[in-house]
């Protein structure tokens, strides 16, 4: 990445010239830096400051006294699950959030690659048409996708229950099926801090619908850049379809899919809309994510100080996640250094 820019400065120039380069560069950067200083960096610093105070609604009014300093109390309130939000359990929310992002990304990549492979089969008809149809979910704003899927899982009027009624229900003459997918109180699975309610699977279904098409687009791009000679050579060596897949296709897909999967992990980890609009974090806060808790602290509780401390936890967690995934990505990359 840096090689491109480094090239500009070779051969080594005099100090005068270099400082002039720096001046030109900062002139180009000035507008963006000025705006970011005011609307990004200052709020971030301010965020750290109020995380040590008990800033809340009464400190918001103009001319209100400064919020009193409370030390690390906000941080310990979060760890002690003492932040007014009902059913909040920091470790459980964090575990669910990590599990949610991980399962989604794995499924998205597998389905996305599988469908890209189907659409890449030599001689398949209507390829362009199918690719155009499959891109549709990407074009719909996530906030609407979430609201639509909430309706799909409605116990009475939703498409899912009606489809079950219309097929299995009619066939076996069953009474109307009215399972409340998003509010079923008994979790399907409980393992230590990991609690998976039925709503998790409803959210997963919606996010799979939303997520695989973009992975498929990326995989298709990578597939089309694989030199055809490699396949011909493998075929001459007597390799069948699955062997060619293993020895030629998958190694070529990895450098494109891996960074994209890491990016997808961060996006899914912070995916506000599905949790908020589909399940509302329920049942009993079991499908809350860190982002929805963060939002509730500000919008519903007006606990700005606690929210700021919570955001710092969020930042540290994301930093650790990114460092780990980057390291994993580098360790498993076979080539493409």
């Amino acid at each position, binding site marked *: *990445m*840096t090689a*491109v*820019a*480094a090239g*500009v400065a070779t051969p080594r120039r005099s100090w005068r010239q270099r400082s002039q380069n720096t001046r030109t560069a900062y002139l*180009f*950067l000035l*507008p*963006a*830096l000025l*705006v*970011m200083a005011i609307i*990004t960096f*200052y*709020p971030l610093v*301010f*965020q750290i400051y*109020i995380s040590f105070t008990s800033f809340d609604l009464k400190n*918001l009014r103009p001319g209100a006294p400064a919020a009193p300093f409370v030390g690390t109390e906000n941080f310990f309130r979060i760890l002690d699950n003492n932040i007014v939000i009902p059913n909040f359990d920091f470790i459980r929310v964090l575990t669910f959030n990590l599990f949610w992002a991980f399962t989604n990304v794995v499924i998205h990549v597998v389905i996305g690659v599988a469908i890209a492979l*189907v659409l890449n089969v*030599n*001689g*398949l*008809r*209507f390829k362009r048409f*199918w690719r155009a149809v*499959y*891109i*549709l979910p990407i074009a*719909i*704003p996530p*906030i*609407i996708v979430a*609201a639509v899927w909430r*309706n*799909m899982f409605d116990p*009475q009027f939703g498409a899912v229950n009606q489809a079950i009624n219309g097929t299995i229900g009619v066939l076996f003459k069953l009474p109307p099926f009215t399972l409340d997918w998003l509010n079923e109180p008994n979790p399907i699975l409980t393992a230590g801090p990991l609690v998976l309610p039925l709503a998790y699977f409803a959210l997963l279904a919606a996010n799979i*619908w939303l997520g695989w098409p973009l992975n498929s687009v990326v995989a298709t791009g990578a597939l*089309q*850049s694989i*030199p*055809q000679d490699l396949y011909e050579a493998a075929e001459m060596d007597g390799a069948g379809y699955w062997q060619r897949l293993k020895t030629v296709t998958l190694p070529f897909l990895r450098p*494109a899919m891996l*960074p*994209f999967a890491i*990016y*997808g992990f961060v996006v899914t980890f*912070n995916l*506000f809309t599905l949790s908020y609009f589909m399940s509302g974090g329920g049942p009993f806060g079991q499908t809350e994510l860190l*982002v929805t808790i963060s*939002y509730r602290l*500000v919008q519903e509780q007006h606990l700005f100080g606690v*929210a*700021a401390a919570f*955001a710092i936890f*969020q*930042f540290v967690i*994301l*930093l650790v996640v990114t460092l780990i995934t980057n390291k994993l990505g580098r360790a498993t990359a076979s080539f493409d250094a």
Partner: protein
Amino acid sequence: MTAPRVVLATNVKVKPISQARTGGGRRLKPANQILLQLACIAIAATVLFPIVWIVGMSLDPRNISRPDSLIPPGANLDAYARVIARPTLNPVSFIQLALNSLTLAVLISVLSVGLGVMAAYAFSRMKFRGREFMMLLILAVLMLPAVATVGSLYINLNRISFGNFRLGGSLLGVALAVTSTQLPFAIWNMKGYLDTIPKELEEAAVVDGATKFQTFVRVILPLSTPVLAVTALFGFIAGWTEFILAQVFVVGDPSQWTLAIALNALVGQYAGSTPWSTFAAFAVLFALPVMIVYLLLQRWIVSGLTVGGVKG
């Protein structure tokens, strides 16, 4: 990392075409062709079902009663008429909501591309003191979800007011807050694309006596149209559909509501009985502009999106 892939891409472009002409279709047995087509139809059905479902529901005259077929009997556009006249319980028309969303979208789009492209150019083409540090700083901000700084932004923008106008309670405030999260994305995305423009073009301009700024305007900007368009599109969509910041900042003033706030009022967790036909018509009208623009620009989107490291 980028250069070899470009070469590969141009190489293959020739081959599959010649192969298809010499009978790529022959290589697939009819049985396999049918099997794969059936799979494609099944996938298309799952993709299309929610879309057809919501459009069908928006045409349903019975508003909430159980739809029993995808095109309901007596389908009409009543729900659309209701939505356009008065989508929520507040006396705001759909046009007003859409105009507010449009204002937000245009402001964010212009701010993030306009401010971002110059910074992206500096990061891509210049060597200067503090470059690495500032790139890391921007990347770190990119990782933070918008919601993480919403409280701090709200407090600070509320302190800025002129007479009755309070920045923290206005659409302009929302636009600034969203820009704070869109700008790092815009810078990184555009830098990734500018990295792929050959340096020789610029050097030729410099030999002809052009200054850095002239080179930027005359050479780089015209060549980066795809990424400018895509970054603007992402800014536009981010503004058009923004919920969290808009809800926190302007929910108290219905005349400044956006489409996303109204959607939340329609189906939000406290709205017990949702009028589903009204909701469906609203969702269709909300999504349609984005879908049309997206499909028109589809070709450019993959080449113009570089943030995921797709292009290295």
